[in-house]
């Protein structure tokens, strides 16, 4: 059996509803690869065109070479959990083609409280939280907040924030960025299962101060991060998972409140059509980027577009007001005394 025959591929699309998901194991030749989008731990993602309807899809080719155990566990979880999710910001699984040829949810799992022990072999190394690196099995959503911090930092820096090669290297990078963990800032870290595997006394592991400000101040053509953006990264990249910012806290963060542009619905995102070239002024990430502004200069078309955008900004503000209302009210969707039961409907399925 050759290698390509053992690959599985998944077709993903952002907006389409899966039409005939079931059993339509189309050969991967039905899709024409246009380019490579990215590569993760579990496979390569391609941009592809569906030859039958000329629609653009994402094609993920799962790595199967290491798998003697049938379909890899990560692929299984990724696909079945993506199948359940339906959101404009989350890719939708269109088709799965198993046998010949075939969004990072590889180790997503169903949420449980109280937390139950989970395998620590998760998450792309670059985004792995320190407690998981130290072998914590009872990790929580705080670990995802760390990953979010890494990705936010990556957007600011325009390069991966912590591109570790192996686990010890990853920890060195974390320490180089944030300083070394101490009992004061992270009381329980020495009790974690793998804490004694990492040597914290080597020179590389000794770094007293956080260098995150310098790292994100200016690099790789990215503009300097604004103070609020920096603060958000710092609050997300906190060693102690208990002190790390949670989702609710992150949404309330001053980065989203005090610094423009404010959060809004995607269609109301304000694009800057600055005729002055280059950055300056508040873009999305504080410094603003000049990309794209050059193509959209001059003419009445721009004026019209701007008018339209201003109309949409009004919508955006309404939406924002709604968001505020929502998070003032902690458990807004749980009116006391409401019947939690949905009518059991046999006809529905």
């Amino acid at each position, binding site marked *: 059996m050759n290698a390509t025959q053992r690959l599985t591929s998944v077709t993903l699309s952002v907006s389409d509803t899966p039409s005939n*998901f*079931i*059993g339509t*194991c189309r050969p991967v030749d039905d899709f024409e690869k246009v380019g490579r989008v990215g590569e993760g731990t579990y496979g390569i993602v391609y941009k592809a065109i569906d030859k039958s309807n000329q629609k653009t899809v994402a094609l993920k080719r799962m790595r199967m070479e290491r798998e*003697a*155990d*049938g*379909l890899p*566990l990560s692929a*299984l*979880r990724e*696909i*079945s*959990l993506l*199948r*359940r999710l339906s959101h404009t910001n989350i890719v939708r*699984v269109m088709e*799965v083609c*198993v*046998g010949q040829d075939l969004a990072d949810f590889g180790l997503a*799992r*169903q*949420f*449980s*409280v*109280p937390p*139950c*022990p*989970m*395998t620590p072999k998760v998450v792309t190394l670059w985004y792995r939280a320190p407690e998981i690196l130290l072998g914590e*099995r009872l990790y929580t959503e705080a670990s995802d907040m760390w990953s979010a911090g890494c990705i936010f930092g990556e957007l600011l820096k325009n390069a991966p924030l912590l591109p570790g090669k192996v686990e010890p290297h990853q920890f060195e990078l974390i320490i180089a960025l944030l300083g070394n963990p101490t009992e004061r800032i992270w009381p329980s870290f020495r009790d974690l299962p793998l804490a004694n595997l990492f040597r914290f006394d080597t020179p590389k592991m000794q770094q007293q101060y956080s260098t995150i400000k310098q790292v994100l101040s200016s690099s790789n053509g990215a503009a300097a991060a604004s103070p609020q953006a920096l603060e958000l990264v710092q609050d997300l990249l906190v060693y102690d998972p208990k002190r790390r910012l949670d989702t609710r806290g992150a949404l309330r963060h001053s980065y989203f409140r005090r610094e423009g542009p404010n959060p809004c619905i995607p269609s109301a995102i304000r694009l800057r059509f600055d005729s002055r070239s280059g950055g300056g002024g508040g873009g999305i990430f504080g410094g603003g980027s000049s990309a794209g502004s050059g193509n959209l200069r001059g003419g009445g078309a721009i004026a019209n577009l701007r008018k339209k955008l201003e109309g949409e900004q009004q919508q955006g503000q309404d939406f924002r007001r709604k968001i505020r209302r929502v998070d003032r009210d902690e*458990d807004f*969707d*749980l009116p*006391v*005394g409401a019947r*939690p*039961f*949905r009518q*059991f*409907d046999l006809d*529905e*399925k």
Partner: protein
Amino acid sequence: QTQPQLALTPLAVAFVPSKRLLNLMNRQHLHLPNPFYDSTVQQGKMQNDIRPTLVNWCSSLSQEFQFNTETVFLSVNFLDRYLSSTKVVRIQQLYLLASSCVYLAAKFGEELKEPCISDVSALSMFGSSIKDVKRMEAKVLKELKWELTPVSPQSILSELLSSIGELFPTVLKDKITN
């Protein structure tokens, strides 16, 4: 000195279900087997005691591997849903199906004990090969449309218990202080 009144029964507490519990309840009618598959899909060809035997088989396999009870529920759901859509006649195939369902459920649901396909094959009733298990796994996934997240009674129960656990200390504290 007043004694705190602890004569509360759990039912007296105004119970506000957690979001997770609501989510489970709203999804509980999804991914259920056809209750009449025995007479419709299988056309009455299944022996009377075969389903209980298969469920027992799932259960004892899970016990052998020390899987969670949730895995047993999950595998039985997979088994029934597969049999709701595909006719299986041979007893060997039925056992292979049951083993594959346990294997699949464990892959999906077990955190610390990843199942090993050679163990599943070695413990199969009729000597199914690794290749057989893999093939059956793919078939099951296709028939279940990759929907591996049914709500089991077990998961509702444990969610219910844990949310009562979360709720109780604070409620009791409130009652005592008032």
